[in-house]
């Protein structure tokens, strides 16, 4: 925060940093940020909820993000997602009760040349095959 000299326009950068450090943004943390940037809490909350990137709920230990952008869509991303939803018992956008896995979706990862694309724990996999991905998701869920 110091690095940003408490400037109001640094809000988005500070939120990026906070999310990177803690995984998600809690209300307390947002209040703290508002206080130190001298901004009304409503402004901080408004910004944090406007951008898809910021999450106010904890994410799973592992994450699997299926791209539903156009290029992936025409290459069967919906079937891929359906397979993973069935395998994990999760709906897209939710996290398993044990906190192991979040199943997420995205709109284009910029990897359209190798569609359909999936990100597992930060690593992009291209030409994703439903069966291979099903096995990977299973492995993440069964891991202890």
């Amino acid at each position: 925060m110091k690095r940003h000299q408490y400037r109001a326009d640094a809000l988005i950068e500070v939120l990026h940093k906070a999310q990177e450090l803690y995984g998600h943004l809690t209300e307390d943390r947002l209040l703290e940020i508002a206080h130190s940037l001298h901004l009304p809490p409503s402004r901080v909350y408004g910004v944090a909820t406007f951008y898809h990137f910021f999450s106010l709920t904890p994410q799973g230990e592992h994450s699997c993000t299926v791209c539903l952008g156009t290029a992936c869509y025409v290459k069967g991303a919906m079937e891929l997602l359906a397979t993973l939803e069935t395998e994990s018992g999760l709906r897209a956008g939710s996290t398993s009760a044990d906190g192991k896995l979040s199943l997420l979706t995205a709109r284009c990862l910029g990897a359209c040349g190798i569609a359909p694309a999936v990100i597992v724990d930060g690593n992009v996999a291209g030409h994703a095959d439903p069966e291979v991905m099903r096995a990977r998701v299973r492995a993440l869920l069964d891991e202890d």
Partner: protein
Amino acid sequence: MEFQDLQIMAEQERSRRKAIRIHCCTSSGCQASGALELFHQLQAAVEAAGQNERVDIVGVGCMGFCGQGPMVSVEADGVLFEHVRPEQAPEIIASLDGGPCNVKQGDHAHPFFSRQLHIVRRNGGVIDPERIEEYIAVGGYQALYHVLHEMSPAEVIDAITRSGLRGRGGAGYPTGLKWATVAKSPGERKFVICNGDEGDPGAFMDRSILESDPHLILEGMSIAAYAVGADQGYLYVRGEYPLAIARLQKAIAQARKHDLLGSQIFDTSFNFRVDIRVGAGAFVCGEETALIASIEGRRGQPRPRPPYPAEHGLWGYPTLINNVETFGNIAPIITNGADWYAGIGTERSKGTKVFALTGKVRNTGLIEVPMGMTIREIVEELGGGTPDGTPVKGVQTGGPSGGCIPEALFDTPVDYESLAEVGSIMGSGGMVVMDATTNMVEIARFYMEFCMDESCGKCIPCRTGTVQMYRLLSKISAGQATAADLATLEQLCHLLRETSLCGLGQSAPNPVQSTLRYFREEYERLLRKRVRINLTSR
């Protein structure tokens, strides 16, 4: 830094080159296919073969053939390897001395490569984007030097105007005209912003340019800053592009170290700093006024224009905002001259355009072609048609703001006016090929869902209209809609276009209208089903 220093650096860089340079693409597409492991294995194989003195393995930017990655090429003889697996590294090194090699080879003579014309992407897949020395060795920053020492700002603007360059971010506004407006707008300070938000799904041109040749963009921004009188620049990049951000950070640090950014650049009175701003996942932030709000640390919501950012932009100051690819054309225009550039392309659309060719097409990847090439040439010759020979049905250009062009109109040349005439737009360059199995109503529904999710909610026609249209499209798709529903859908198209505040809402109906225009029977077939159900249940 003086001109001579640039030349000395370039000379030093060229002389430290080894006899054989092997390029291994380490950009996002290939990284996802295992390129980093391959890169290390290639280095290990050179070491093991005792070829360190002779062979250099260089990590380079995107070669464009991302669908066939990881890609490797041998510079001198132009051999191209596709789908290279890490364990094949020793084979590639041995093949330099005539050893047997079973790695799949690509063909430079294939139209996918031979019909391209590289201006913006000329260094893509050729230089190491993480080393400023390599950019300087291919003539980098000489255009900036030339501009600062030999041209007045007015002369620079005149050159860009005469080149005929138009904005590559979608709307195709003449770049020289925009620069002239910013230059003559009064303001204590001025800013230059590079729009690297690229939210259009199915597009990754800007990502690849930023990853493959970051200095080209910095040089273009610097020239622009000199021309309009700005001393601070911002590069706004999507949060989804970590590699592009990392490479830009490195490039900015290197340029600063060599005094190519900062104060008194090339010993002149020109000062220019550039900072990166990372987007946080909102498509609407690609719209210029929303992007400015986002840089100011606010919610990324558009505001009515005028005033345009050129007069009243970042923190109220005159601001030049251009797309990544637009900036990528600047240094080449200065180096080769406005007339050279104006000689490429069509009457009203000059130069080249980078497209991301994806979807149901054999050769997916990035291509840069002269304006005026036909869609048929792109899809059939460069793209090689569909992978399994299923007939092509159409191609979507311009993403959620664009339209679908049916196969019957594939002889349309790609230029701003022709694409608009057939009901689509040039857009930023996404080109998604669809085959006979693609359901066009579903595609329209898909884009509407996208616009609904991405609507910032500031104005009512877009906020509620996209929801209504999405519901209607879902109803049609499920076979439960009537002809009256279809009529309502068409009315909503007009309403959104006429009354929305920004481009997102105004163009949200485009995919619906263009699929209705060319594939109406697909909608009507779904309506008729309802009639049949009614009859049988009676």
